[in-house]
C-alpha cells in the first residue's frame, strides 16, 4: 500500500502531519491525522497561583 505523508501541515497554529494510504488501484484507503505535539499545560499549571494562570495559558496558542 502506498503512503503519502504531508509533513508538516502549514499555515496554521501548531504541529500536524497527515498520512494518506492509497490502495492498489490508487484510491484513498485511509487517512491518519497526527498531532506530534504535547506540552502538558494540563499538568504544569497545577500548583501555580490562580492569578498567574491567565498569563501562562495565554501561551497555549499565541496566534
Amino acid at each position, binding site marked *: 500500500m502506498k503512503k503519502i505523508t504531508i509533513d508538516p501541515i502549514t499555515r496554521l497554529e501548531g504541529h500536524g502531519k497527515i498520512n494518506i494510504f492509497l490502495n492498489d488501484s490508487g484510491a484513498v484507503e485511509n487517512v*491518519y491525522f497526527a498531532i506530534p505535539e*504535547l506540552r*502538558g499545560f*494540563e499538568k*504544569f499549571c*497545577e500548583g501555580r497561583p490562580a492569578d498567574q494562570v491567565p498569563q501562562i495559558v495565554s501561551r497555549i496558542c499565541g*496566534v
Partner: protein
Amino acid sequence: MSKLKLASYWGAACGGCDVAILDIHEKIVDLSNAADIVFWPIAVDFKYSDLEAYEDGYIDVCLFHGAVRNSENEHIAKLLRQKSKVMVAFGSCAISGGIPGLANFKKKDDIFARAYFDSPSTQNKEKVLPVPVLQMPEGEIDIPEFYKDVKCLADVVDVEYYMPGCPPTSEQIWNVVLAIVTGQLPPAGSFVGCEDRALCNTCKRTKTDKKIKKFVRPHEIIVDPDLCLLEQGLVCMGPVTRAGCGNQCTGANTPCSGCYGPLSGVVDMGAKYISALASVVDADSPEEADKIISEVLDPAGTFYRYGLPGSLLRRAK
C-alpha cells in the same frame, strides 16, 4: 548580490513569536524585497522534504523559536543547523525553555496521566497512551518521542545569537531584521533585540528605598500607577530581568514576570532574584523575614517562569 535566505521554525511553542514577526505589518513587504523566506511553517508552505533537499548552509539566518520538547523538535533543530549559516535562538522558549519549560516541574508519566487519563474532558477507558510508532491495518504511522525533560535550543545545537522575549517585541524584531539585512549583526554569542541593563532602568515609576513588610497578590491592592511595583509589595521581576520589551507589563500596572530573561553574566535567574528580595525585605528578625518571604506564592514557578530548563536547577526532582 543574491537575496538573503531566511527560515523560521517552531519547536515546542505557541506561535506567538511567529505572530510577533508578522506584526511588523507592511514592513513584511520590505523584508520580502530583501530576503526570500525558504521555510516558515506558520506562513508559507514548505515541507520537511524541501528543507532536507537544500544544500548545507543554504539558509543565511534561521530564527528558531520554541523549546526542545520531543524528538521531532531536536531533529528539525539539527537539520536547520546543518542548513543554516546563522542560528538565532528566538524567544524565551528557545533560549531557556520558556513556558513549556514549566513542565520540568513535573514528571513525564504524570503529564501523560493528566493529559490522557484524568483531565475532565478526556474519555479514554482503554487507557491508550501515545506511542512513537503504531502499526495500523494500512501500514505504519509515527509521532515523535516525548522527552523526559524540556531542553533549550543550545542544548542540542550551536547557537550564534539569542533574542529574548515572550515574545520579542515587533519593534525589536524589525531592528534585528535590519541588522541581518545590512550585515550589522554583533559578534556571535551576543544577545540581540534587547538591552544589557535591568528592566528597572527603563521603568518610569518612582523608586524610593525598598523596604517591603508584606508581599501582596495583584487582586489584594489598588495599584498606584506611579510607584515602583515591588515597593508596593508585588513580586516584580524587573530588578533581574533584561530590558528591551518597552515595559509593556509594568506600564500596564502589571509586575514584570521576567520573560526577557536574566542579564548577561547571571547564571541563575531565580537565585539572583532571591538575592534581590533578600536586600529589600524589611525584617527585624529572622522569624519576621521568614514570614514576609513565605507570602511569595510559588516562588520556583514565579522566579523560573520562563527559564527552568536553562537554569542551574534544570528540573524539579
